[in-house]
């Protein structure tokens, strides 16, 4: 019996930052890079997982690449879409629906100036009648309300939130392709002194708005034995989708990440203590605090003190978001694929100055929308 255990065989980024290029061209660059990294060719690809290109994203990208996928998924779940895609591609590979799955993403939102502070609300949705009239910043105000509630329940401070941005910058200074590479360190005071956007979140509590993209190539463990790079196994995954609107979130400080993480740990037969390096979605500093708690890295309400004292910065005992994250590396609208790219590079030992020594198990967690979608993937060396 061939070993159909799903593995990641190749990863790549596209150009990042301000590119003045199209979404499809950025995707093509990432796809070519990931296939090259995997030692595979476009003609080998028979699974395609992509979203946020157009209304028919999979068809759009399949045609652009000239491939005919027999397994695909175009789920739009914002920031967690790509953790879901790794999971869904793993299932498709295991079940024999495809042999080589290509997962790809790109966005040119910085060049195209396509991002708005109010977000995009479809007129036929309940939010257009019951939430949009109140003019929240979307998504910032929802995350701000999560931060406010976390402060109210647990005494979390703005200084503790700022520690997340400070650590992200320190990692980015070790990543030559990061948007803030070479821009110098951040201090807590810098974050607290930046413009208040939606109280209590300052500008520097919010992720970057950049272009960028990435691609991940997956196949079977059997096939990966003949490929150049060391394969990375998908050990476990889980997801949970909780809400679309702002008022519908059951608990602003205990999110669906708890369900997603619990399922991923159970499937992997691992726990939080087994994770050597974590890549968790940092759309906002508060997003990270809710994730650290929900994923079991600390107790509920304790994430503020957990991130103090440089624990999540280079040299700290909890290496996290080692690329510099959405806060200081890049944030092309949907960052989830780049969490996976960095996790794989860490496990392969390719991260140079920011390498976590001996990392064998990595956890990626995507949070999409307004704490709406949550997906965890645990990967480990084959």
């Amino acid at each position, binding site marked *: 019996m061939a070993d159909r255990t799903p593995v990641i065989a190749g990863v790549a980024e596209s150009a990042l930052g301000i590119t003045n290029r199209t979404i499809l061209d950025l995707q093509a660059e990432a796809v070519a890079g990931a296939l090259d990294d995997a030692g595979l060719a476009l003609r080998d690809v028979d699974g395609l997982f992509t979203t946020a290109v157009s209304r028919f994203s999979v068809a759009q990208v399949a045609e652009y690449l000239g491939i005919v996928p027999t397994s695909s998924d175009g789920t739009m779940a914002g920031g967690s879409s790509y953790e879901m895609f790794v999971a869904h591609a793993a299932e498709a590979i295991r079940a024999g629906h495809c042999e080589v799955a290509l997962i790809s993403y790109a966005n040119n939102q910085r060049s195209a100036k396509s991002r708005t502070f109010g977000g995009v609300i479809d007129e036929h949705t*309940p939010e257009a009648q019951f939430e949009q009239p*109140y003019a929240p910043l979307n998504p910032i105000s929802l995350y701000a309300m999560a931060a406010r509630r976390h402060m109210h329940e647990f005494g979390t401070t703005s200084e503790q939130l700022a520690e997340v941005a400070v650590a992200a910058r320190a990692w980015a200074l070790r990543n030559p392709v990061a948007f803030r590479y070479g821009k110098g360190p951040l201090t807590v005071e810098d974050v607290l002194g930046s413009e208040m956007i939606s109280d209590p979140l300052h500008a520097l509590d919010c992720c970057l708005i950049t272009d960028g993209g990435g691609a991940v190539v997956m196949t079977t463990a059997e096939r990966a034995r003949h490929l150049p790079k060391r394969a990375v196994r998908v050990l476990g995954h889980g997801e949970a989708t909780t809400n679309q*609107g702002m008022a519908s979130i059951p608990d602003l400080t205990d999110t669906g990440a708890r369900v997603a993480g619990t399922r991923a740990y159970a499937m992997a037969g691992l726990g939080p203590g087994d994770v050597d390096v974590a890549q968790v979605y940092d759309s906002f500093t508060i997003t990270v605090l809710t994730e650290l708690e929900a994923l079991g890295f600390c107790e509920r309400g304790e994430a503020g003190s957990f991130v103090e004292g440089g624990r999540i910065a280079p040299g700290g005992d909890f290496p996290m978001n080692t690329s510099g994250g959405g806060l200081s590396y890049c944030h092309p609208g949907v960052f989830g694929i780049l969490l996976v790219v960095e996790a794989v590079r860490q496990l392969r030992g390719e991260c140079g100055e920011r390498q976590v020594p001996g990392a064998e198990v990595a956890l990626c967690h995507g949070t999409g929308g307004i704490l709406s979608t949550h997906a965890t993937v645990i990967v480990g060396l084959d």
Partner: protein
Amino acid sequence: MSEPRPIAPPDAVTEPWWNATREGRLMVQRCATCSHVQHYPRGICTACGARDLALVESSGCGTIYSYSVVRRAPHPALEAPYVVAIVQLEEGPRLLTNVVGCSPEDVRCEQPVAVAWEDLPDGRRLPLFTPQES
């Protein structure tokens, strides 16, 4: 206010709820089968799956679950700073709203609030909330 608030028209399911606002009545939806109370109005009970739902009047009182002071308005209808909040009604459901009638600096989590109404150009009224006299 220079421009009207961005708001979509009612649909067949929500129209009775919006019509009640014209009389200054804040409604919530109650399930005839299991008595679950929910908001916004929709075509199914999220607790039991039944479709026999009726509008009942809320007391209009609740508490602030959380809030944010918006410093950079996304729409010209509102002038920053203003307060966006999630209010938990006495009947249970939560809704998004603006807290008005006080300084944004005086808003707190768990603060008691009561509904206040703002007229919309089409005759509907929009429920806002204001700190309640204790």
